[in-house]
């Protein structure tokens, strides 16, 4: 196999593996939104507060997935 193809292969596999980290962010977002929706259903008066906190939590959970994205973008576009 010629070196260029090997490099591309390695990059693609590495970027794909790095994005596994996004699964954690997905699970976290799902849990927090699920909990928030339940809370809003039981207590509609506090929707605004719950929503704000939910968005904050979702943002923190998403940040982890974003780190994974950063790693895979670096592997794909910056590594030579």
């Amino acid at each position, binding site marked *: 196999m010629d070196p*260029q193809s090997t490099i591309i292969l390695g990059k693609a596999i590495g970027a794909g593996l790095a994005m596994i980290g996004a699964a954690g962010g997905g699970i976290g977002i799902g849990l927090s939104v699920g909990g928030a929706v339940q809370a809003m259903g039981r207590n509609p008066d506090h929707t*605004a*507060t719950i929503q*704000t906190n939910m*968005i*904050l939590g*979702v*943002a923190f959970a*998403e*940040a982890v997935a*974003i*780190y994974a*994205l*950063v790693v895979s*973008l670096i592997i*794909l*576009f910056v590594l*030579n």
Partner: protein
Amino acid sequence: MNSFWNGKRRFVALLMFLAGVFVALRVPPVIPFIQLPGENFPEGFDMPFVDIRWTNTMVGSVIVWIVLLLFVVYVSRRRPKDGNEVPPGGFYYLFEVLFEGLMGFVGGIAGGRHFRLIFNMFMTIFLVVLMANWMELVPGVDTIGFIHPHVKEKYDADKDEYKVVTTDGYEIYQGFLGISYVNGQCDWISPADEAAADAAALANAESAKLAVMDELAVKAAYARYKAEHNGHGDEVHEEDAGDDHGDDDHADIAVESDEASAAYDEVLAAREAEKQARRDRSCYTGVAPGPWQEGYEPYDKSKAKDISLHPDPSAEEAKRVPWVVLPFVRVPSTDLNMTLTLALIAFVMIQFIGFKALGIGYLTKFFNFSTLFKSPLGGIDVAVGLLELIGDFAKILSFSFRLLGNIFAGSILLFVMSFLVPILPWPFFILEFFVGVIQALVFALLTAIFMNLATISHHHDDDHDHAEAH
């Protein structure tokens, strides 16, 4: 008017669908070329006064600012000065609804003493990011642009100069003369067809040369025959003519180097001119099949160290350089420069409002040594403060990459879907419409929340501030 359009609208949709089918069948779909950093404009498109090359994302953000400033002018012109004027109506109300709704929304989160500053920040970031995100829905953005070789600039530290290299890092002769514009009037050159036409031209030239040679040979033979038989009168012997032809090699060579090669060259030159004309009309200059085309060969570093693309675009080495579209305008949120700048502005504003609200005491949030020797767990407070410090800087990263990642992924989704289903990519445009709103809201809302958190003191008066805020 309404009833008129209600009847016709579905026909417009049908026509657009048929047009989509037609275009999808006529135009070969192009595999999207994805590049993370904003693409530099070619030479000759530098910014005035400063020595900076335009990038297409920069053009996008300039357009965003111009549109926003137009909105500002419009809204401030239409706003009624006193309550008795005629309601402005129309587009103006959209902004009123937006401001009323979001004011209530932000008021619920950060409705304290610093509401004005926080809301101004929120609204500015929201509108800028919203405009930037929605640009990916505009037709022509990301798709219309220069067609240029698949190259970028690279700094050569040894020679202290910039070199043009392919995006895979291989050197190319500097010069961008191969640029042509997309005007919908270009040919797709098939390398196989070109090779066949070349072979046919070669054969034609050969036969033209042979024809001229034959003609000349016959003439020469006739002249010699005349010279030989002048003295003997007009008797013609078949054997003589045959013998003449047999020992005539010398004369043939002399004839070939003269007029016959001229005929040969003429045919080849005509073919060359035709080729050049085709190349001028082609969608890319130079016969360089892209990765999506027949005849494409991947780049081989060992073979082409110093290819000269520009002097001879038809050279074998140059043919292997792929050609891509460099859009005139690209979505600004797909460039890390734009999102990072916004994140830095948000970060600075968060620290600013913290100092404004708490004075120098704001720093105790990060460097909390007050309880170090008083309480048995004072060390934990120090560690928490340092974590807060790191967390604040991590905000820059997460802010910028959240927006970049979502919008960049969204625009790649749109490219790929337009490639896979050229007729019906619009459900994804609807998806991207909402993603744009949500990301703009998240960016602005997190700024507002963090700004509000920065105004709240960490210590004993924590509860008091909370009570005041709500």
